[in-house]
C-alpha cells in the first residue's frame, strides 16, 4: 500500500472555490446583461466584450511580466471585473475608453495592491469613476433604449431619470418602465427586475447574504421617503429612487464585492446604511445626479475600520459579575 497522508482535521472540504463563486456572480449577472443587450443592441455587445477581454488580458500580462506570480486569470475574477465595468458604462462609449477603463480597473484598482483579495477598493468602480472624471461627456451621454438596436456610437441619446430629477426637466418614466428597464442609463443598471433575479440567485446559492443589499435599499427608501414627504416638488418619490440609476446594480453586485466589503453581518449593515445615506446625499444635494459609485468607494475605505471595531456576535451569554 502507498504511504498514507497525514494532516490535521478537517479531512473533507465542501468543494467551494474562488472560481465557483466568481462564476456564480457572473451567472447572476446574465439577466441584467440580457436586458442591456435587448435595449442597447450592438453597442452593449461591443462594450461588454471589450471590457471582459481587456480585463482578462491586462491581468494576464501584469501577472506574467510584472508580478511574475502564478497565473490567476482562470479564477474568473478578472472576467467578472470586466463584466461589472461594462455594465456600469453607457453602451455608446468608444472602445478605446473601455480599454483604458479596464486598464485602470485591473492595473491600478486590483493588481497594484497584489491581486485578488488585497485591493481596498472595488476595481470595476475604480475604472468607472476614473472614466467618469476623465471623460464626463461620453460617460453621461446615454443612448435611448431601442430593442435590438444596431446602432453603436451613433445611437440616439436619452437622459437618465436621475438627471431629469436633478435638473427638473422631462417626464419621469412610469414605475413599470423603471422596473423592467425601459429607460436611458448604463448598460446593466436599467432593469431592476433583472438585477433582482440575480439577487435571488446569489442568495439561493449562498454566494452573498442579504445584509448589504437590503440595508442599502432600505436606507435609500427611507431617506428619500422622508425627503419626498418634506418636499414632493423638489425630491422624487422613494420608488423612483429605488429603481433608477445605478442603485440596484450597485447594491446587489458592486457593494457586495467580497474583497472590499465588511466581514460580518453587523459590519455589513453599518456599511450598507452608510452607502445608502451617502448615495441619497449626493443625489439630493450634490453636484452629480447619481452617487452610488462614490458612495460605495467611500464606504470601501471605511471597511477596514468597520472590521476592526464591529465584531460579530460571539457565542455565549454574558456572565454577570
Amino acid at each position, binding site marked *: *500500500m*502507498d504511504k*498514507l*497522508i*497525514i*494532516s*490535521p*482535521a*478537517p*479531512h*473533507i*472540504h*465542501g468543494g*467551494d*472555490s*474562488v472560481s*465557483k*463563486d466568481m462564476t456564480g456572480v457572473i451567472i447572476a449577472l446574465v439577466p441584467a446583461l440580457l436586458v442591456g443587450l435587448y435595449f442597447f443592441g450592438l453597442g452593449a455587445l461591443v462594450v461588454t466584450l471589450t471590457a471582459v477581454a481587456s480585463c482578462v488580458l491586462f491581468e494576464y500580462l501584469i501577472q506574467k511580466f510584472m508580478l511574475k506570480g502564478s497565473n490567476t486569470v482562470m*479564477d474568473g*475574477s478578472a472576467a467578472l471585473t470586466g463584466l461589472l465595468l461594462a455594465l456600469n458604462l453607457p453602451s455608446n462609449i468608444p472602445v478605446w475608453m473601455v480599454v483604458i477603463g479596464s486598464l485602470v480597473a485591473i492595473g491600478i484598482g486590483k493588481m497594484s495592491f*497584489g*491581486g*485578488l*483579495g*488585497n485591493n481596498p477598493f472595488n476595481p470595476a468602480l475604480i475604472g468607472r469613476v476614473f472614466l467618469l472624471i476623465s471623460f464626463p461627456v461620453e460617460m453621461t451621454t446615454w443612448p435611448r433604449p431601442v430593442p435590438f438596436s444596431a446602432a453603436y456610437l451613433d445611437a440616439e441619446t436619452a437622459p437618465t431619470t436621475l438627471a431629469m430629477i436633478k435638473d427638473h426637466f422631462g417626464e419621469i418614466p412610469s414605475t413599470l418602465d423603471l422596473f423592467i428597464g425601459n429607460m436611458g442609463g448604463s448598460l446593466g443598471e436599467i432593469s431592476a427586475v433583472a438585477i433582482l433575479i440575480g439577487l435571488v440567485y446569489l442568495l439561493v446559492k449562498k454566494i452573498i*447574504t442579504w445584509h448589504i443589499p437590503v440595508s442599502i435599499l432600505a436606507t435609500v427608501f427611507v431617506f428619500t421617503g422622508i425627503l419626498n414627504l418634506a418636499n414632493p416638488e423638489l425630491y422624487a418619490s422613494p420608488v423612483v429612487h429605488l429603481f433608477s440609476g445605478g442603485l440596484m446594480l450597485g447594491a446587489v453586485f458592486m457593494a457586495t464585492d*467580497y*474583497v*472590499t*466589503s*465588511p*466581514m*460580518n453581518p453587523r459590519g455589513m449593515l453599518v456599511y450598507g446604511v452608510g452607502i445608502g445615506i451617502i448615495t441619497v446625499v449626493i443625489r439630493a444635494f450634490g453636484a452629480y445626479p447619481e452617487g452610488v459609485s462614490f458612495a460605495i468607494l467611500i464606504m470601501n475605505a471605511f471597511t477596514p475600520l468597520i*472590521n476592526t471595531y464591529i*465584531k*460579530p*456576535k*460571539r*457565542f*455565549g*451569554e*454574558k*456572565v454577570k459579575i
Partner: protein
Amino acid sequence: MKTFRMGGIHPKENKFSAGKQIQVAELPKQVVIPLSHYIGTPSEAVVKKGDVVKVGQLIGKANGLISANVHSSVSGKVNKIDVQLDATGYKRSAVYIDVDGDEWLETIDRSTEIKRECNLSKEEIIRKIQDAGIVGLGGATFPTHVKLSPPPGKKANILIINAVECESYLTCDHQLMLEKGEEILVGTTILMKALEVNRAVIGIENNKKDAIVHLQQLAKNFKGIKVEALKVRYPQGGEKQLIDAIIRRQVPSGRIPIEVGAVVQNVGTTYAVYEAVQKNKPMIERVMTISGKTAPNPGNYLVRLGTYLASVVDQAGGIPEGTGKIVGGGPMMGRSLMNLNVPMAKGSSGVVFIRKEESVRKPVKNCIRCAKCVTVCPMGLEPFLLMSQSERNMWDEMEDNCTMDCIECGSCSYTCPSNRPLLDYIRFGKTTVGGIIRNRATKK
C-alpha cells in the same frame, strides 16, 4: 425543528453503514490497553507482567480527579507494560495482554435481559460509574463521574443526551439506539437520578428518523424523558451547540454547561452507564463504525478495548484500494492515522477511509474576504482574522478576539473557497495563547 442558532455547515452525510446490525468483532490474539484514554491523568497499572487477568478485571487505577479506571477487556496473561503509539499519535503507557479464552469476572451479569429497576442512591450510582471507568464516548473521553458531580453551588436542572452524531460516515450511536433503545432509556433514568433532575431530552438529528420514532415509542414508559428531533447541521454534537439547540441557552465563554443548568452525556456513554450500574460491567468494549466511500463492507462493530484497529478493519474487508488517508473518528474532527497498528481506545468512534483524490488538500489561494468562515463559525469568531494573527504571532490580539472559544469543529476550513488552512493556524495559536494564559494564572 430545533437547531443551534449560530453558524454551522451541512457536509454530505455518507452514512453508508446506517442500519447495519452491530457485529461482534472477533476476539484478538493480543490486546494493548492504553492506561490513559486521550484526556486526563494516566491511570496507574495494578497488574504486572505474568499476571493472569479476567475480562472486567481492574488493571489500571484512576490517578487523581480527571482520570478513569481501566479494566481488562479480555482474559489472559499480562505480557508486558510498555509504551505504545496510540491513535492520537502520542506514546502512551499501555498494558499488553495475550488473550487466552474468554473468562469473565463472575460479578458481571452477561444476560441480555433488561434490568429496569435501580434502587441505588445518587452516591452509589456515581461510585459505580467511577469504578467502571466510564468516560465520555463522544470523543473527548472526559470522565463521566466528574460531569455528574457539579461544583458546589451549581445545580443541574436538565440532562441532555447527545445522540446527534453529526459527523459524516459515523453510525455507531445510531445503530446502538436501534438495538439498545430501552437500555439507553434506563441509562438515562439512572443519570437523571445521579444528577437529581426530573427532565431529560435526547437530541437526535433528523437523518435518523427510525431511531427517533423508536425511542419516542419507548420513552412513553419513562417519566420525564423527551426525544427531540433536530435539524441536520454540523457541529450540533458540540456540547455548547446542542445545549443552545435544545434549551436556547448559550453557555458563557470559558464556562461549563452547568452554568446554564445543563449536563450533557453522549448516548453511547448512557448505554455504558446502564451496563455499569445494572450489569456491573466496566467499560471494556464499545461500538465503532468502519466506513468510507470505497469501504468494501461498511458496518458497525462491537470491539473490545485494546484491539488493534488493523484487526477490526480486516474483518470489515480490509483497507480499500485507492485509500489516501485513514481517519480515526469522523472526517471533520478525527485524526488521520499513520497506520492501523494502534489500539482501539474508549474514544474510538470509527475508522473512515478517505479516497486519495479527497485526501490531498488543494492549493492555498489568497483570502478573498468572502466572510464565509465568519458565517459558518458556530462560536461567532472570525477565523480569517485569527489565522492571520496566528501567522504573525499576534497572541494578545488572538486572545482579545476570543480564540480560546474555538471548538475546533473545522467548519471554517471546510468552507473556505481559497482552501486556506484556517483551523491549522487557529489550533496552533490556541495552544500558544492557552499556554500564555496558564502562565499568567500561575504567576498570580
